[in-house]
């Protein structure tokens, strides 16, 4: 039998293979896309009617264009996206542990970080599409009030936010590699962000004694910068404080997450629990 024409493992080919695998699997679940779109429509409709209870010109909404529906839709759409970035990597590790595919992946020549990112790529891209759809539906059917969009602000806040939440995702994945469940990053960043990060109401409404916690959460700056850039016709200078805060989070979390992942992988290999669940 002839041997294969084995090439060096190209990152792009590996990413394409992961995407193809996940797309093929997703296509075997015929109703998942339909239920996802239905969920977006129902969520938008719910906030559309809730917004009728909030008078236009409410002071706390002033910095974000003044319209509650637009404020909430942008918050919910982007919080979903950020949630996927912070949970996605841990979710794929957990899923591979539970399904039993982790060992088979780890004996291939592909570096572990590439496996991790590749495994979550489809979910991340799908969530990007879902977010765009969410905003599109809100714009087309419910009157999402976009301002003069600050593309540079959206881009800067978006890139820094993705790096920040991917770092949190790597920290979560590191925890799951070693401890399997009970991921504290998910609780801190997910649950706390929902309440304190200004997803569906401005943090200005929070009592001052708790509001300071919001300033420790990256989601606060991500949503603030994104809303100002999309809804309030803010200039780049207006979102600079958010950009600076997100850059500081990145500078801290990115190296910390890479070190944590290396240590976690070593510990799991040392304890022989890499594929345990």
């Amino acid at each position, binding site marked *: *039998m*002839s*041997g*294969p*024409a*084995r*090439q*060096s*493992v*190209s990152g792009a*080919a*590996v990413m*394409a*293979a*992961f995407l*193809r*695998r996940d797309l*093929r*699997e997703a296509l*075997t679940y015929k109703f998942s896309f339909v239920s996802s779109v239905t969920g977006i429509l129902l969520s938008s409709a719910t906030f559309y009617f809730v917004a009728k209870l909030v008078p236009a010109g409410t002071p706390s909404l002033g910095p974000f264009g003044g319209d509650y529906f637009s404020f909430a839709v942008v918050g919910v759409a982007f919080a979903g996206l950020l949630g996927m970035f912070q949970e996605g990597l841990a979710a794929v590790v957990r899923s591979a542990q539970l*399904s*039993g*595919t982790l*060992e*088979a*992946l*780890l*004996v*291939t*020549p*592909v570096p572990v970080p590439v496996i991790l990112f590749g495994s979550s790529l489809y979910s991340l891209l799908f969530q990007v599409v879902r977010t765009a759809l969410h905003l599109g539906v809100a714009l087309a059917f419910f009157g999402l009030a976009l301002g003069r969009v600050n593309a540079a602000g959206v881009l800067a806040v978006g890139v820094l936010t993705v790096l920040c939440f991917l770092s949190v995702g790597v920290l979560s994945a590191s925890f799951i590699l070693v401890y399997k469940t009970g991921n504290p990053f998910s609780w801190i960043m997910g649950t706390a962000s929902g309440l304190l990060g200004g997803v569906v109401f401005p943090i200005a409404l929070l009592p001052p004694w708790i509001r300071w916690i919001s300033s420790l959460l990256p989601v606060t700056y991500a949503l603030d910068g994104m809303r100002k850039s999309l809804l309030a016709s803010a200039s780049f200078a207006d979102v600079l404080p958010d950009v600076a805060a997100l850059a500081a989070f990145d500078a801290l979390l990115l190296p910390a997450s890479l070190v944590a992942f290396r240590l976690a992988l*070593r510990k799991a*290999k*040392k*304890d*022989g629990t*890499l*594929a345990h669940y």
Partner: protein
Amino acid sequence: MSAPSVLVAEGLVKRYPVFRGFRDLILHPLERRTVTALDGLDLEVGRGRVFCLLGPNGAGKTTLIKVLATLVLPDGGRASVAGHDVALEPGPARNAVGYAVSDERSFYWRLSGRQNLEFFGALYGLGGPARGRRIDELLRLAGLEEAADLRFNGYSTGMRQMLAFARALLADAAILLVDEPTRSLDPQAADRVRAFLRGELAGRQGKTILWATHDLGEAADCADDIAVISRGRIRLRSPAASLAAGGRASLRQAYEQAVGESEEKP
């Protein structure tokens, strides 16, 4: 002259931490309890040999294979694959072996056999028409041509095992690690797997195979060399021909003696 060794373990030690409950952790927070899986194990497997590793449950067979596959880091000693230290050069070591992960959960159940191989083939650096040709070749070799486009969840246990071999062969590594490949197979399927490993992979393709099994007859029929592992050490090692010369009964006697002695003198 004997074949050069491509799998080597020298004084290999592996201890796993013992799972402890909350009460134990609170009462003895600094205590570290371990169970020894490999206890200074020495082993050499020559190129092109079929090396069967016999031993009772918990003897250390799977741990040894996982160390050689770079999935578990040793605590002491060293192990190398094709000259690459598994702890210091895990990448090249991994490239040198095909690990036939027998766990049927290691596949994507909603994809077909071919789609599974396409995915893993890409991870092994196979691309374009070469990947398709290689997969067709392996599916034919594994007797899965007709089932290639069926979903994996429709495969029998024997077919799943053969697909695991096909996956391990994607990169055409010269060394194969197989862990109890005939476990849970019916006698005919087990015979097909043995014939495939011994006849095709070792006989025709000249691959080196480290083969963990509980089945003494399987070892006698298929191996060039046999070792008995118990309590983390090799207790007996011999060419299969001399061990099996006295028939199955003498092999069984040698096995039981090696395991029994290790239990008396751990």
